[in-house]
Structure formats: C-alpha cells, structure tokens
C-alpha cells in the first residue's frame, strides 16, 4: 500500500500533510471550545440549533473525520504513514483530551483504561476500516482518471474492512439484539476493570 499513485503530483510536506491535518485539528479545537460554551447562545431559540449544529460537526469530525482527511491526503500524494497519522490525528487528540478530563475523578491507571472503553476504543479501531474503505475508493477514482495497473482490492484494505465489521458487531451489536445491543462488550470491559482495579 505504499504510495500507489504515481500519476499524482507529490506536493510539499506542508501542503500534503501539515496543512490538512492542522486545519482538521483547528476545526476540532474550535468546535470543542464552542460546545463547551453553549451558554453564549442563552436558553432561547438559538440554543438548540447552535448545540445541534456544533455537536453534529464535532461528532462527525471525531468519528468519521478520516473519511474526509484520508482522501485529501491521498490526492496530495501523502505516503501511507502520513495518511494514517493524518487520519488519526483528531481522534487521538480527542482521546487524549478525554483521558485528561476523566483524570479529574479517576486515577491515572483508570484514566488510561477509560480509553479502552467501548466508545473511544471502538472509534480507534473503526478508523482502520474507514481508511481501508477510503483507500479503495481513492484507488477506484484514480483508476477512473487513468491510473493504469492499479488494483483496487488488495489484502490490506480488505482485512481493514473485515476488522471494521467485526468491531462493529462486538462493540455495537453484541448483546440482546433488539433491546440491549453492545452490552456484552461493555460488561467484559467492566469485568476487566474489576480485575485490574478492584482485585476481583
């Protein structure tokens, strides 16, 4: 999966990597700040639309940001390593911020373990699948543009999609499907907590 886009111009490091990642992080920081100060919008007609819009953007950026960032990096000629780092940047910063925030009431060990709770950990693993999907879509688009001999489906991205599907099942669906999906993974996680921090 090393840069498979010889027909693309490889832009400068700043242009292909730093700027896109920096903008994504900047947007995240702005939205994080804004959602932390929703009182600015009072409690009237503005509040709910403002909260809806800002949290929607923030959520999309954290959970699905790699769908936006990965293709940008791809078509700017970023290497695989750069694409992966760039796609993970916002999510990793958010996870570290969450660890810092929960450290206010959890111990250092518990705070780190918090990052393995279903939501942050799930998102971290889902990115593998998102990037794999993006990789195949980008290859397909590139092939349409005339990229000769380019294979769309290779083992790496296909395994990535498999990991995504498995993780979605484990974290989101595993449980009593109609009523409490996802609970089994959560209870396993809690048992892990008891074993690690409560000596049970």
């Amino acid at each position, binding site marked *: 999966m090393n840069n498979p886009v010889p027909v693309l111009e490889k832009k400068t490091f700043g242009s292909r990597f730093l700027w896109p990642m920096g903008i994504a992080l900047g947007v995240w920081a702005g939205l994080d700040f804004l959602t932390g100060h929703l009182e600015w919008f009072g409690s009237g007609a503005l509040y709910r639309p403002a909260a809806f819009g800002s*949290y929607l953007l923030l959520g999309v950026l954290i959970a699905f940001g790699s769908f936006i960032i990965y293709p940008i990096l791809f078509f700017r000629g970023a290497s695989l390593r750069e694409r992966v780092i760039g796609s993970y940047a916002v999510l990793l910063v958010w996870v570290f911020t969450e660890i810092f925030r929960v450290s206010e009431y959890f111990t250092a060990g518990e705070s780190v373990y918090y990052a393995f709770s279903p939501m942050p950990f799930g998102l971290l693993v889902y990115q593998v699948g998102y990037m794999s999907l993006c990789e195949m879509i980008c290859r397909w688009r590139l092939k349409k543009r005339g990229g000769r001999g380019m294979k769309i489906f290779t083992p790496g991205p296909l395994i990535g999609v498999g990991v995504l599907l498995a993780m979605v099942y484990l974290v989101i669906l595993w449980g009593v499907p109609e009523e409490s999906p996802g609970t089994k993974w959560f209870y396993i996680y809690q048992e892990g907590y008891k074993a690690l921090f409560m000596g049970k």
Partner: protein
Amino acid sequence: MNSIRWKIYCQIKHRGFGWIPLVFAVFTLIFSGSVLGAEKRPNIIFILSDDHRWDAMGNMGHPFVQTPSLDRLAKEGVRFNNAFVTTPLCSPSRASFLTGQYPHRHGVKNNLTPWNDRNITFLELLKKAGYKNAFIGKWHMPGRLPDILGKAVDRFVTFTVSGGQGVYFDCPLIIDGKVQERKGKYLTEDLTDLAIEFMNREKDGPFCIYLAHKAVHQPFWPSPEFRKLYEDIDISRHLPPGYHSWVSMIRGSWYYGMLGNVEQFYRDYCRTITAMDNQIGRILAELDRLGIADRTLVVYSGDNGIFWGEKQFIDKRWPYEEATRIPFIVRYPAGSKNPGMKCDQLVLNVDLAPTLLDAAGVPVPESMQGRSFKPVLGNRDFPLRESFHLEYYKDFPYRVPEYDAVRTEKFLYVEYRGGKKPELFNIQKDPRTLHNMIETFEGKRALPGLQERLREYIRGKSGE
C-alpha cells in the same frame, strides 16, 4: 379468636346470665375495628420502578403522561413530595430500600461492588415475624444472586439476562432457582401476573410482596397497546431548556444507552410509564377483588430519577433534584387518616424498611439508618428530619466524581472529590440548581452550618 368468643358466649348463656352476652356482643362490635383489628398485621406490597422521575406522573402535574393508577394511589393514600434516594444509582439504592442502610454500611456502593449476604433485609425480619414473602423482579446488584430463598422470601423471581437489567420482552425468569423461558411475555405484565398469583395464594395474610420492575429503564419499551400513545405530542416543548439533540452522546453519556433521538426516547419513556401504571392498576384491582385492600399497605417508589437534558445531562448519579428525587406514594387505610394527603417531609429510601417493620409491629434493628415515617401517615407535621446525607461512590466508567452532600429543605451543599469545586444551591429559589451561590452573601452565611452538618455525616460514615 372467633371460636374462643363463641365458647365463652355458650358458657355464659348456659349459666343463665342472659344479658351478659348482649353486652359482650356490643363491646365486641365497638372494639372490633380498633383493638382487635390492630392485631391484624397489614399485608405489604412494595412496588419499585427503575429511573422513574418524581414528576413524571399525572398527579404531580406532568403535562401529558397518563398514570391513572398512581393517581388513584395518591388520591387514596399519602404522596410524599420530597422523597429522595441517598445515592442516585440503581444498585446502591435498591440495597438501601431493602436494608434501611446507606451504601457505606450495606456495601453496595456502586454498580460494581457486590451484595453481601450478611446484610439483613426487612423481608428477612418480616419472615421471622410470620409473613409470607415474595421477591418478584429486578435484583440487579453486583455479584451472584443473593441467598434469600427460604431465609427471607418464600418465592424468589428474578432475572440475570443483560447484566441483570433484564429485557422487556421474552425475558427468561429464574423462579425459585430454576430458569424458565417466557416467550411472548411482556416483562412488566409477567411480573405482575406472578405478584397477583402470590397475592391469591397468600390472601389470608399477612404477606409481603417486593415487586421490582425493569420498567421504566431504557430502552423504554412499552407494551404493544401503548406503542402509539403520545404520538401527537410535541416532545421538544416538554424537554428542559438545557436539552439538545446530542445530549445523550456527550461527556460519556453514551453508556446510558440512548444513542439516537432523545425526543423519541422521552416519548417512549412516557409510554413505558403508562404501560407500567396499567399493570399497577391490575394489582390495585386485584386487592379490591380479594377484599383485602383495607388491610394492605401499598407503597410505590422509584430507585432514582433521571436527567432529560437538564445541565446537558442524561442518566442519573449527580446530586441534583432530577436524579435524587423519587416518586413515593403510600396507601395505608389503617394508618392514614387523610386520604389524598400531600406531605412535604423529607423522606428517604432508607426509611422504607423501618417503616414497613413498624407497620408490621416488628422491632426495627438499630443497624437500620432510616426512620419510620409511619407516624407521618397520620400526622404530616410529625417531625421526621431537617436534613439528610447524600453520598456517591465512583462508578467507572461513568464520569461523575465521588461526592458527599447535605440536603436540607432549603439548601443543597455538595463537596466533590477531585478537582470539581463545591456547590451550594438554594433549592427553594433555584430548584433546577442552575446558580451556584457559594460565593454570594447568602451562600457565605449558610455555608458554615451546612459544612458542619456534612462533617458530622462524613465522620459518621468514616467511623464504620
């Protein structure tokens, strides 16, 4: 008793004192309702719901939720407007209802620390006093199921599926230790059927039924006949000002399990309340049918409240009114003089056990930290308490700091562990606890007394 009276009557009549039986009969008639009736211990039915907020009932002025059975109960009994849990979380609160103790004493401090079989429940004490008991419904305390069958109850029905939360439909039940599939059954109705069955079996009494519903906990599934209820209600108008569409997905709230449209969840919450109320109506109707309503003490309560977007919170756990206040209605025809009475006394979940024991004439153990509110049922001015202690222990991974708090009729003062600063609210002026007044003149004046009281509470629990 009747046969003894009849023998005395025959002996007296046989000796020619014909006027004595007449006098005896008159006295019997006069006193049978009081002196002799007092010998009869009441049947007890305690109905516990899950996450039912104190204000989500028609009789509390909710704008649209229909709760005719709870309204009836309030009309015929006493409704406590200021009822609270000492820890706003399921497992600790359930253990407190059963033991009359705070979590620091019974040991179920959160949803992770296990129940200790050495804890003594009011059910055990009632059984020793001759009651026939049934525990029917949600146990949901960490650890293995308790050893109460035979010791505290004569029938033990519960479930362990989904981490002990149960499921609304087809929920397998463990009945006296044996797992039974319950295909096609709606859990609230199924548990009610079993409670009614036990009532019929033990109608001669005295019996005690602890009926703990999964309802109205998420995922808020009503029974089929109520699925279309409240369809035309504009829910957004009834949710609090702090609510927004993503409120269930921030600050770790996703672990409460409401990913999706919170407005739809709230609609289903209200439907599930009405569905549960319908089943409570069946219990009341059965008491009427059996003719034992007058000698049955019925208590309805919830294990804690729930936020619906206030302060951008979902779930419970925090020390604010939305989480700590619970519905609490008591119907006790033999003990309350004013049906329909509304009482503003501070009543707690830990008060249930001593009250039920008191009503049954069973001595209340000193280890119980609650107080019997039985006298309040007859006299709402009976002094019960001026303040109480709220405590919360870390419940990983839920993002709420540990705290101790003191709640009086007027103030709520909270001290958190970790970096969060103390808070003080004037509940009477600011019931939504939006304005921390700790730095105000009024706050500084009230603070020393509240701090001293909280120190006393904390010293009390540290000494155990």
